[in-house]
């Protein structure tokens, strides 16, 4: 099972070649329109002008997303690497603050962060959510931050993410989210 990490925690993570050179650091994470996987990163800092990566790193150039660094194969874009799609959802712009609903219209809460799997998949595993009153009853100040697995059939409509089904499974910690989501192989083949 790949290590789970929140997209916010990826900010400032160094981008390092397999040759050991740091070429940039992560400024933001870019997701596909369905918020299903990472399509790339926006970069900042560290020798950007000397490298040819520019300010965007497509996921196809990533060797492995690790706990301490984003590993890339080389300083140059590998031939045939697809650019980051322009319609990708930059974390800060679109996904954070989005409403999470069930398809019957029940509000689950507001997205605080996106949980992704480390390794080579770039898969979105779930969301860290400021839970709504309907989901976690109680006074607002005691309302809890919970993790909700993404599942396979999430749809995106405008500024809302819609989960299929009536019941929403939630957990209070990242390891619990890993148990709710299906395991996948890691970086090593």
């Amino acid at each position, binding site marked *: 099972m790949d290590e789970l990490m929140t997209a916010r925690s990826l900010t400032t993570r160094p981008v*390092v070649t397999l*040759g050991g*050179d*740091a070429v940039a650091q992560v400024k933001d994470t870019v997701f596909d329109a369905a918020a299903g996987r990472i399509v790339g990163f926006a970069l900042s800092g560290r020798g950007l002008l000397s490298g040819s990566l520019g300010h965007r790193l497509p996921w196809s150039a990533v*060797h*492995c997303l*690790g*706990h301490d*660094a984003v590993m890339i194969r080389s300083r140059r874009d590998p031939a045939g690497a697809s650019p980051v799609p322009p319609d990708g959802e930059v974390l800060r712009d679109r996904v954070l603050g989005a409403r999470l609903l069930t398809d019957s219209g029940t509000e689950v809460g507001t997205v605080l962060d996106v949980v992704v799997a480390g390794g080579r998949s770039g898969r979105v595993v779930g969301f860290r959510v400021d839970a709504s009153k309907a989901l976690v009853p109680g006074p607002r100040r005691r309302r809890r931050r919970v993790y909700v697995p993404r599942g396979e059939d999430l749809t995106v409509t405008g500024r809302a993410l819609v989960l299929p089904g009536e019941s929403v499974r939630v957990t209070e910690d990242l390891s619990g989210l890993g148990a709710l989501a299906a395991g996948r192989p890691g970086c090593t083949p």
Partner: protein
Amino acid sequence: MLFSRVRGLPVVAPDATETGVVTSLAVDVDAGTVTHLRLRGRHRRETVLPWAAVHAVEPDAVLVHAHSPGPSDAPAPPHDLLGSRVLTDTGEARGTVLDAVFDPDTGRVLAVFTTLGTLSAELLLGLGDYALVVRATG
């Protein structure tokens, strides 16, 4: 022999003149060998001696070949192995390099000692300005 053991050794030419003191060893991680000795010579000048010019590494001195051109100002690979951060190719931190062992006859790097244990030389992938990258195991 340990990298740290070579540091500070005098470099002696065949005519017994001392040309400098070893400050560090430069390695080619791909080839797994020591490529240069970095020296501090007279007037604190930094020079490099290619490994091919080394005749022998003795416990108390490095002896230079009789017909080698001796130390030069040519640049060696810039990154120092000792003190380098260690990252796996999967992006996990694995401590820092404390020391390394090489064969003084061939210059082959045999193992790297880190704050988290010993790494065999076959695991090394690259050494850059940020880290020593090693193959993840297990």
